[in-house]
Structures are given as structure tokens and as C-alpha cells.
């Protein structure tokens, strides 16, 4: 039983192809197919990039700022002029899995078609039916990309595609590789395919291609990516200290369902991935993803395990705040994250043993301190929580001190951070999470 999100969807897909037209399906089959397509859209996190508040669902227009100009995500509603209403299913499939627009031009790889190439025919069909029949058309044009000629010529993208994006045939072959059991195979399909986790969590090469598109390409896959909007995606492999070593299956499931668990809270782009995507998945699918992630061997097997060291907590609790950054920590962080660094999860995440802040690159931690973070309410955890932004209150030296303290205390033992590094990171600091507009309403 491989690998449609829905075998029924696959069945109807074939049935529909035989019948020659989507519209000839019976009404109840159609509504089932639309529901399945909606689920595939959620598993594929389409709305994280294609829905912008105030423009209508899937009407596109999200800006991607690049050094050479700005790209805007497409309107993928069934509007025939501004959206994808004129796409045939084959054209739709080619865009999603191969990155080729209806007019033959290549899509920028901000669209994760190298991952979507792994999606099954059945899922693609359900997705197509959903976008054609289950989504409201929005007659809104997206702003034109502002990349100047000659950089706007899409020919290099075509070459890029040819070199770095797998053919659908090759991708499907990799999807069909046997793994330990059906559930892990299902998890692999979701993570490597529609979930496109590697788009952020895998390292990229010189041409911004993902260095590995599946675990069969080796342990670089999901070993942690480069900063996105100022935040550094962690390793999702079993790496000690900087990866998911120590997370249980339930920890991962809870994190993907609610954005929070006893080990941490989502921030930055991951909140969008959960809000628009993973929180809508079934428990069975989340467990499958978790089991697959837990099966990934560490990329850096020599890293030692994190062990709690009580000395920093003992000093603070004895009134000794003489360590570098300890006083800033007491004044600004300790109320929620506690002197023992264990926080009060899920309201306030632990800092002790948190993989986000033990990475070599301190950007995520520094940026969270500078700009704050907002965890929106999710269906299964309606409370939103906010961490305040400190860039207006703390100097770069104070932030360097406190970040150094946090990275060293409680057994974290990560390298110190200098004021110069913090000053440099100020330039790439994301906009304050609260001001950005996702106002958590509680």
C-alpha cells in the first residue's frame, strides 16, 4: 500500500482519468475528493506561502525578498485570469512536481517542487480537484516580481531544474524504497514529499539546491539548514544536543500538533508550518512522521549527549549572579524560564537542553532575544504565548552576555557570543514578532 495520502483518492484519480473529466464524478465522491485534496494541501503546507492575510485564501502575493529583488508567490485559486483556473490536471501536476509553469517557464525553487516530485498521482489528483472545485476563485493579481533584467531571465532556472530537481520517475522510485515498516514508509513519504521539511531543515549547496532530498541521499538530509528570516532550522535527525535526540515520539507529535511540548516551543517560520500545515494532520500521520524522524541516524555522531548541570541554578538560587550575563538573565528571563532553566512548559519553554540554543550558530537565540517570538493559538492548544522583544531595552553587550550565559548554563556548554556578533545579527534581526501582525489574542 504505497503512498497516496489516500488510496481512495488514487482510486478516484484513476476513475476520473478514465472518465475523462472531473465534473462527471458523483457529488458525494466529489466532496470526498475535495476533502482529501484539502488534507493534501494542508500536509503540503500550501497556504503558508500562498495565503496572505487580507487577500483571500490561496490568492498569493507573499513577498520573498532576495538580494536581487523580490519574488511573489502565485495566486493558486481557480480564477482563470489571475489564478490557475486554466490549468489542466497535467499542467497542474507539471507545475507542482516539476516546477514548470503552464506557459513553459520554470518556477523559482522557492516552490519546493524537488520535494513535491515525490507526491503520488492520487494525491496530486485530489489536490487538483480541491484547487479547482474546493477553493474560491480570487480575481487578484499578484505584484510582478521585481528582479531586473537580465537576472529575470528564467533560462538559468530551467538549467537549475534539470540539474538539481529529480524527475518524477526518479523521485517516485526513491519513494518506493523499502523501509522498516509501513508506518515509517508513510512517515518518510510525508516528511520527504508533501511536508517538504528538507526545504528548510536540509543544508543547501552553492546553487541553493538541497544537498540531499531524502534520507537515501545520506545524512545531510534534515541535518539542519541555513538561516531563514533570521532563524536557523535545527537538525531533525538523532543528533545529540542540536537535533532531536532525546525527543520521544509523543514529543514530536505534540509539537507538530500544537507548536509546543515539554521541550520547546515553535518560533519563526515553524509556527507557520504548524499553523497552516501539521496541526491539521491526523494523529496517525503525525505518529508516522515522528517514527520516521526518530529513525534518522545522527549526522554528527561524535556529539556528546546533553546532561543537566545544576551549578548555574545553584549559584542563582544562592543569590550569586556574578557569572557573565547572569544578572541580565535574572532581571529579564528568569521570571518565565526559571533559575534552573527548565521553564514552565508548555507555557514557557525550557532553555536547559533546548537544541535551538546549543547550535554553533547562535542566530536563532540572539534573534529571539532581539525580536521576541509569538506562538499563535492552535486548534488543539488555543492559547497564544508571546516572548517580548528586548532589542529596545538591552544593549548588544547585554544581549551577548545573557545569550552567553544561557548557552553555557545548565549543561548547555555552547560557545560564548560577543557583542560584535550581536551587533552584526541586529542587521538580520526579524521584525518584532508582535508588531508583525500576528497578534495573539489572549
Amino acid at each position, binding site marked *: 500500500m504505497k503512498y497516496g495520502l489516500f488510496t481512495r483518492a488514487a482510486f478516484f484519480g484513476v476513475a476520473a482519468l478514465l472518465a475523462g473529466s472531473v465534473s462527471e464524478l458523483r457529488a458525494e465522491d466529489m466532496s470526498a475528493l475535495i476533502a482529501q485534496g484539502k488534507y493534501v494541501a494542508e500536509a503540503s503546507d500550501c497556504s503558508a506561502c500562498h495565503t496572505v492575510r487580507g487577500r483571500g485564501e490561496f490568492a498569493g502575493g507573499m513577498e520573498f525578498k532576495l538580494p536581487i529583488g523580490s519574488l511573489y508567490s502565485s495566486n493558486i485559486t481557480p480564477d482563470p485570469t489571475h489564478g490557475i483556473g486554466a490549468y489542466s490536471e497535467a499542467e497542474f501536476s507539471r507545475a507542482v512536481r516539476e516546477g514548470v509553469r503552464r506557459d513553459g517557464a520554470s518556477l523559482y525553487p522557492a516552490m519546493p517542487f524537488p520535494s513535491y516530485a515525490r507526491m503520488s498521482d492520487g494525491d496530486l489528483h485530489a489536490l487538483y480537484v480541491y484547487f479547482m472545485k474546493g477553493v474560491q476563485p480570487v480575481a487578484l493579481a499578484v505584484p510582478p516580481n521585481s528582479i531586473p533584467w537580465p537576472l529575470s531571465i528564467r533560462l538559468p532556472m530551467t538549467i537549475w531544474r534539470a540539474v538539481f530537481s529529480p524527475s518524477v520517475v526518479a523521485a517516485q522510485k526513491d519513494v518506493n524504497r523499502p523501509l522498516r515498516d509501513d508506518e515509517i514508509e508513510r512517515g518518510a513519504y510525508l516528511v520527504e514529499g508533501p511536508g517538504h521539511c528538507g526545504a528548510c531543515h536540509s543544508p543547501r549547496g552553492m546553487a541553493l539546491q538541497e544537498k540531499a532530498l531524502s534520507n537515501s541521499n545520506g545524512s545531510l538530509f534534515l541535518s539542519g539548514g541555513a538561516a531563514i528570516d533570521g532563524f536557523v532550522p535545527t537538525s531533525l535527525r538523532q543528533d545529540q544536543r542540536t537535533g532531536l535526540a532525546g525527543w520521544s515520539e509523543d514529543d514530536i507529535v505534540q509539537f507538530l500538533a500544537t507548536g509546543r511540548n515539554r521541550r520547546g516551543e515553535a518560533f519563526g517560520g515553524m509556527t507557520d508550518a504548524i499553523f497552516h500545515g501539521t496541526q491539521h494532520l491526523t494523529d496517525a500521520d503525525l505518529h508516522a512522521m515522528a517514527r520516521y524522524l526518530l529513525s534518522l541516524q545522527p549526522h554528527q555522531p561524535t556529539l556528546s549527549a546533553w546532561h543537566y548541570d545544576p551549578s548555574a541554578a545553584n549559584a542563582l538560587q544562592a543569590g550569586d549572579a556574578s557569572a557573565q550575563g547572569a544578572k541580565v538573565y535574572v532581571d529579564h528571563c528568569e521570571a518565565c524560564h526559571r533559575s534552573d532553566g527548565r521553564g514552565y512548559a508548555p507555557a514557557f519553554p525550557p532553555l536547559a537542553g533546548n537544541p535551538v540554543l546549543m547550535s554553533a550558530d547562535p542566530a536563532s537565540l540572539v534573534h529571539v532575544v532581539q525580536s521576541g517570538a509569538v506562538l499563535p493559538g492552535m486548534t488543539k492548544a488555543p*492559547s497564544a504565548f508571546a516572548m517580548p522583544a528586548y532589542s529596545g531595552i538591552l544593549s548588544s553587550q547585554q544581549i551577548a552576555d545573557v545569550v552567553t550565559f544561557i548557552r553555557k548554563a545548565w549543561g548547555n556548554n555552547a560557545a560564548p557570543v560577543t557583542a560584535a556578533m550581536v551587533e552584526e545579527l541586529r542587521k538580520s534581526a526579524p521584525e518584532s514578532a508582535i508588531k508583525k501582525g500576528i497578534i495573539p489574542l489572549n
Partner: protein
Amino acid sequence: MCAKKVDAIVIGAGWAGSILAKELTEAGLSVVMLERGDERATAVEGDYPSSIDELRGAIRHRLFQNLSQSTVTIRNTLDQEALPYRRLAAFLPGEGVGGAGLHWSGVHFRVAPDDLALRTNVVARYGKNFIPEGMNLQDYGVTYEELEPFFDKAEKVFGTSGEPYTIKGKIAGNGNRFAPDRSDAFPLPAMGEVYSASLFRSAAANVGYHPYALPAANASAQYTNPYGVQMGPCNFCGYCSGYDCYMYSKASPNVNILPALRQDPKFTLITKAHVLKVNLDADNKKATGVSYLDLRTKKQVELDADLVIISAFQFHNVHLMLLSGIGQPYNPQQNTGTVGRNFVYQTITTSRAWLSPKQYTNLFVGAGGAGVAIDDFNSMNFDHGPLGFVGGSPVWVNQAGVKPIAAAVGGPGGKAPTWGEGYKEAMVDTYRHSLTIDAHGSNMAYRDVYLDLDPTYSNAYGQPLLRMTFNWKDNDIRMNQYVVGKIEPIIKAMGATKYSLGMLKDGEVFDTRRYQTTHLGGGAIMGTDPKTSCVNRYLQSWDVSNVFVIGASAFPQGMGYNPTGMVAALAYWAAYHIRTTYLKNPGPMVQA
């Protein structure tokens, strides 16, 4: 005029409104909640550390009602001209989403069962003649046993911390032995005790009283409530009363109900919507909806509904009933009508004890709902026979966190100098080494204490202001003096170096310029007789059966306890009966 129609309109986004809106959407109704103030989010308004800026917060009234748009007028006696309350002082109504439920302290009591049938109990024990002339002593018309499931539900929603005495008839903890039996434990263990509270506990026990941990809607640990919303634990920062809790640990409609309610597509919250009146049909028997002023566009909007819930702050409920013509206004001369009748307050005074310089109370530390109390002189827990007054007071150390400006404005107290070096030394001594003990007492209802529409002053929208006629009465002054007298031996047992007892003086007149309490009550009271109450035991208007009036406006007397727990329980009680009875067969639930 083309009006939109919904199933139910809820007026006010505080505790009562949020509870009713949640319950009614759960019942499948489309609900619009109208709030005249702003949207309020902890992450924005309560952003740390500006959330604990005392000047911006309590001093400049960040979360309180804007009196420049609408206020009340106040007088002490019938022969006076009432004047507008232009500066917030004696009481602090909230405004904006969460209402006073966002800026409250968090003391979360149930009710003393005897208080629910106070008239019946006083008459049974002391005879009818014990009730002073001019006192409108009345029963609620509902029993503790009936309300218990709803007290339990409210505590679980609020994440209340406390210690029980009995659960299902069995002793389950060292809680308040005067408290009624519980069906379940508190959802969280009692808050930790600061030094002043633990000192009070041992001293009160030594004197022979029965100390217990105050039930607090400040979370003693992280908590997830039945709606799935999450709270962080309190860290005793002391910024509860007057503030939105940046730790998400003080229960509020914003933290405990609205995150779940806002996810319901049947629920709509409209802010900056000032309700002008409830609209009635031609013969004033049914509400058709409400008229509100959209404060953004300055346009009047009509909204129709089958059911209207008036659940604003206590006196706004009464004001809206008077403006809408629901029920007959109370007339103190003829003693007729019910709307505005039994307007009540609480009788609260504070005493202070100073300890040795080696004993640090550090008054800046605290939590709004935490502390240690005794109930030995509350409700009917002691013999009033030889004392000749009705009512009582719990007594407690509730160190809620005294902020620096408030401490400086309050001064060192006692006989300290008012300036210079002696003043400074006394300030430090008071702030670090003193503690306060409150007598948090009841206030009875009287024939010449009431609410009506002011004949002179109007609000920014051209509507007459609500007029308060209120004064202290001999019964309550003597009650306060008696209970404060019982504090003295506790202070002595603490080993205080000096102390001052705060109590009302004989003939004292109500002074609006000094903060006393925001626990106003009555004016739209519940009861069993439509001649003496506005709403029936389900808080349904006797006169307009599709209007329910929820809040402390339903209290026939001011009780010794803080009112929020009772308001929440009455809200869940009313909602339960709306869901199980009213919606199946709309109409009067009690025949007049």
C-alpha cells in the same frame, strides 16, 4: 432600517459575558458579543516589561473605564444634588475586552451558604425585629447545593489554587472549616505563603481562630483548563490588580475563555461598540435586539436577536435596564419598583502592623489572590444576637504586591513624619517591615441607597448618567468596628512593634476620593418575588423574558467575600438553565 439578526447578543466582554457567550455558542447559537472598549491582548498591551510600568498602568488607568465619555453621579443622601465621578478613585470599573476581569486581583471565593438566604437565616435565628428599620434584607432564591456544580466548573476554568476543607463530606485538607462542602478538589494546590501570610496564620491560630489559604485564581503551577487553554505559574511579581498578567497566570476572560471562544465560527466579537439600549417590541414584553453606537464610525447600529444577555459591569447593567425601560424603576419614597433597588457595596478597612527590623515582609512581593484568611467573623459564623448587627467580614493578610508609586502615595502610615529624614526612614520601615490586615466586610441594602437616572448630567452620547445614592449605615459601621476589634489580638500575637487599626467611625460618610473596592453590587437583584427583585432565580428579567441580566448586579446584599467567584457561578448557572430549559421553550422560566 435594515437590521442584522443573530441568535443571541451578549453585552460586555468581561467574565459574565465571556462565560455566557461560550456556553451559548456551545449550544449552537450564533452569538455577537459587544464591547465598548478596545481589543486587549496580553502579548501586546501586557508586553513585558512595559506591562509592569506602574505609571502607565494603575496610575494612568490603562485598563479602567474612560470617565470622560461616561461615568456616574454620586451623592450620599436623597436631599443632595449628585455630582459626576470625574476621577477614578473609590472604585475602578474596567473597559475593553476582559473588562474588570482583566485587571482584577484574583481572589476567587465561592459563597457562604448562609448569605444566600440571609433574611431567612437572620429571622430564624434572631426574629424579624432584629432587622433594622429601612434595611431591605433579602434571599437570593438559589441554594449553595444548586450552585455547587457551577462553582466547581468556574474554578476549573479559572485554574484556581486553594486548599479544600471537605470534599463530599470527608475532610480533605486544612482549608477553611467554615467553607461549604465541595464536590471536588481545587484544580491547583494553594499558592505559597509569603512571610506576612504565614505569620498571620500562626498568630490567628494561637488566638483560637481558624486560618486558611485564600482561594486564588493565580495559578500556583502551569495549568491547562477544560477549554484547552494554558496558563503559566504565578511568580509573585505583585502586578495583578490593575494589570494584565504577563505570566498568563492570573485568570482572565482573555487568557481562560476567549482563546477557545474565538475559534468558534458562530462567535463574533465587536469592539468599540457602545450599547445605547436594548430594543423592546411594542408592548415591552420582548427584546428585539440592541442599538449600539459604533465608536469608530460614530454611527448607530441596530442588531436584532432572539436573546439578549446584559452582562456588563454591575452598574452598567442597571443603567442599561433603566435606559431601555426594562422593569419598573425603583422609587425610594414609595418603596416601589425594582430597577436600582438594593444597590450595595462592601465595608472594607485596612489595619497595619509593624514588625522588628529583622523581619522582612517586603511588601513589593505578592500575588493578588494569595494570602491567609479567617472566616470566624464572616456571614452567620458567629453569634450576632448580643451584637445587634447583620453581616460580617472575613479577615486576612492578602499581600498583593504594593507598587512603588502606590507605596509612596500611601505614605508610611501611623504617626510618622510627613517629610524629611524621618519620613524616609518610616517609608523604608513600612515598605519592608510592615504588613496589612483587611476586614473585608459585607454591606447591607437600605431603602434610601439605590441607583436611578440622573436628572441633570448626561454622557458623551446624550444619555442621562446613572446616579448613585450611597452612604454608610450604622449597622455596617458597627459590624466593621466589631470585626476590626478582633484583629487586635492577632496583631499582638504576631509580636508587632506597633500597629494602627483601620475602621469606620460612627457616622462616617462615604468618601469617593479614596480607593475602597470595586466590588459594587445589586441594583438588578435576583429573587423569588417580582415586587422586590428584577430578575428571577435564573437571572431572567421578570418583565422581558428574553433578557437575562448577569453579574454582581444580582446580589441582594454585599457579601463579605470577593464577588467574582459568585458572578462566574451565577453565569454558569444561568447559562445551564438557558441551555437546558429556556432554549427548548422560550418564555418566563418562573411564573410571576
